[in-house]
């Protein structure tokens, strides 16, 4: 079986599951000139949700790389921010001074 060359995922594919943002929306933002992961995050919230961009960050980087004709490694990386996983605030109060 021959796989189709360079399959182009459908524009309706959900890229950011936390904030419900599609590939089509990401591509439209890149076309408007938002060409860093941070800018796309700021304008669309992609990567601001519960998972903090664990899935969408790489997918968005790939789209930017394709659009700009650069490699994924050349795409500017955003800052990784704490906490690593969401924490219930009350557990922090209870945990105070117990480390």
């Amino acid at each position: 079986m021959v796989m189709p060359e360079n399959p182009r995922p459908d524009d309706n594919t959900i890229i950011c599951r936390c904030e419900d943002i599609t590939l089509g929306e990401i591509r439209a933002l890149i076309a408007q000139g938002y060409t860093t992961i941070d800018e796309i995050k700021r304008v669309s919230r992609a990567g601001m949700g519960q998972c903090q961009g664990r899935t969408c960050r790489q997918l968005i980087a790939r789209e930017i790389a394709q659009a700009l004709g650069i490699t994924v490694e050349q795409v500017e990386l955003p800052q990784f921010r704490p906490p690593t996983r969401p924490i219930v605030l009350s557990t922090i109060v209870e945990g105070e001074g117990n480390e």
Partner: protein
Amino acid sequence: MSEYSADVVVIGGGVVGCAVAFELAQRGCTNVIVVERGTLACGSTGRCGAGVRQQFGTELNCVLARESVRIFEKMDEYLDYEPGVEFRQSGYLILAFSDKQWDQFKKNVALQRSLGIDVKMLTVDEALEIVPFLNTEGMVGATFCNTDGFANPFHTTFAYGQAAKRLGVRIMTHTTVTGIEVENDRIKAVVTDKGKIATDTVVNCAGAYSGDIAKMAGIDLPVWGERHQILVTEPVEPLMGPMVISFHHDFYFQQSVHGSFLGGIGLPEPKGYNIMSTVEFLERMAATLKQLLPPLTQLRVVRQWAGLYDRSPDAQPILGECPPVEKFYNANGFSGHGFMVAPIVGVLLAELITTGKTSIDISKLDMGRFARGELVFEPSVVG
């Protein structure tokens, strides 16, 4: 040889720089270049608490905020920005926890009301009607202004940036200013890592870095960076209408349009450019929430970050020219309130640059006030 030339170079692509550039272009001054080291809204603007309040303690801060609210109210049409800037007027509830603070609030509210800002003084029970789960232990009263609110700092900056571009403004991102050439007190050029821009007019909108920019023109500007941290929770259904502030706890907390709660608390900070997040902040926030808004400690925090206040000695902005250097304009020193006053600051700076006059008298906010000893301290600052 200069690679570029412009009638005005705006240094800084935050909300203030973009608003100044747009308002200049609106007035026919379209040969403007905005120089931004990173991307638009990547500094203090994009890191701010996003609140818009008019409840200040000095006349000029009140007036600047009041006029900005008027612009925010019609901003989507004014800037023809389809996604919208998400301005919502859900009010600010400011809590008093001592008689001394309550006396200061009475003075503030008298001033605010005299300037046409509709602020009410509330009893503890009246405050509870607005936020029923508030822990009022030790609380004396509160002030409330229902035209205060919240806007999206990213969309606001992008809206100004895009509107400015449509009018011919050039925005150079990923471009760092490395020098300013001045001869006989006249600006000749702004030097960047992407080339030299010939110009005779500079607007310094570099936020916490404004002091460094001024130094390049030989000006000693008393503005410094001071870290302030913020956290944001998971989004939930609408639970709390207004921004809740307590200057006593140095604390603010607000639910955004998106449903997430966002807030911060002041910690002792040295001058500097450090924007790392700390565990201490998270612990202080959690403990203060438990004290003031107990049910909200059931929320999950998803992210924390930090940004810089561009502090001035009296917590009021520095606006206008600074002699002896000609046509070097400042729009900085906002001390944590730059986002909320940016719309009118853009108008005033553009008026000043294009006509030499402003529709609101901002002569008291010049840099000369520090030499004259005419400081007017703003009492209502978090942090």
